[in-house]
């Protein structure tokens, strides 16, 4: 691993520049804005950025965020595996049950790997 050596003089510029979180892959995004999607019900032993409360839930793709380094893969030392992130909106009733009394909602940034390939079929079961 080629390492860097941050000095006092470099610190402010390096902070202001920030890190790179995006990556590239040849294949385009599989889903489009407006699609109904379902997150996988999965419980990996490793690092994941899909919170438990949002697993196996149906939401709507609100925005394509671009292609990003996959946190789960990088933390598992399996490479960057860049892939699309979608902003997915879930209704509070979907997450917390039909008795939730208000028209509230929640947005998550969902890596493509977290989504079911057949969301509609699963949603109708």
């Amino acid at each position: 691993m080629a390492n860097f050596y941050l000095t006092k003089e470099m610190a402010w510029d390096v902070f202001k520049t920030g890190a790179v979180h995006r990556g590239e892959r040849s294949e385009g995004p599989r889903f489009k804005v407006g699609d109904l999607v379902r997150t996988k019900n999965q419980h990996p032993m490793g690092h994941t950025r899909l919170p438990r409360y949002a697993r196996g839930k149906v939401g709507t793709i609100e925005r394509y965020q671009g292609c990003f380094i996959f946190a789960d893969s990088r933390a598992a030392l399996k490479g960057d595996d860049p892939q699309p992130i979608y902003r997915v909106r879930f209704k509070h009733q979907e997450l917390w049950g039909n008795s939730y009394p208000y028209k509230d909602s929640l947005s998550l940034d969902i890596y493509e790997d977290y989504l079911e390939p057949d969301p509609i079929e699963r949603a109708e079961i």
Partner: protein
Amino acid sequence: MSHDHEHSGPPDERALRIKAIESLLIEKGIIDEAAVDELVDIFEHRIGPKNGAKVVARAWVDPDYKARLLENGTAAIAELGFSGVQGEEMTVIENTATVHNMVVCTLCSCYPWPTLGLPPSWYKSAPYRSRVVIEPREVLSEFGYDIPDDKEVRVWDSNAELRYLVLPQRPTGTEGWSEEQLAEIVTRDAMIGTNVVPSPDQTHGASL
């Protein structure tokens, strides 16, 4: 500060542990001690919610800037000179008469450092992280904002590398104010979305 533990007596176990790690990393040529000092100074003194308040105030007085800010948050924030670690992918979300946005990181403590600095303790705490997604209205009420039943709450759990800043509604009673005056009344909590910016009529005499 009563939080400080620099009293006499046996050294704090945590201070020993970080001093041990830091001194070993310095000796091995892996990190530079002066760079640690500098970075700590950056986090304590050169970033913080005053930066975000300038972004909000500019958006309140300049409709073209606001449009750019909502379209591409990272670029518009950089126009004011704010950028960097944990602010590489910024999205600004607008509170309106019908929608109130609030931001959390339920998995850890993700937060937009260049515009808000490091998060307050409550943002990193179990009560906030656990409750805001399931009972956002009770959380808002604890912060002092009783949201109307017919206003929609949108919660943003910043679980990936995108970071969120709330653009609060400009309060009434600030007509004709300068950008600098407006920046003075924008609070950190309003930019996280756990409160609103109160009208100066309601906070007369309060310290902002």
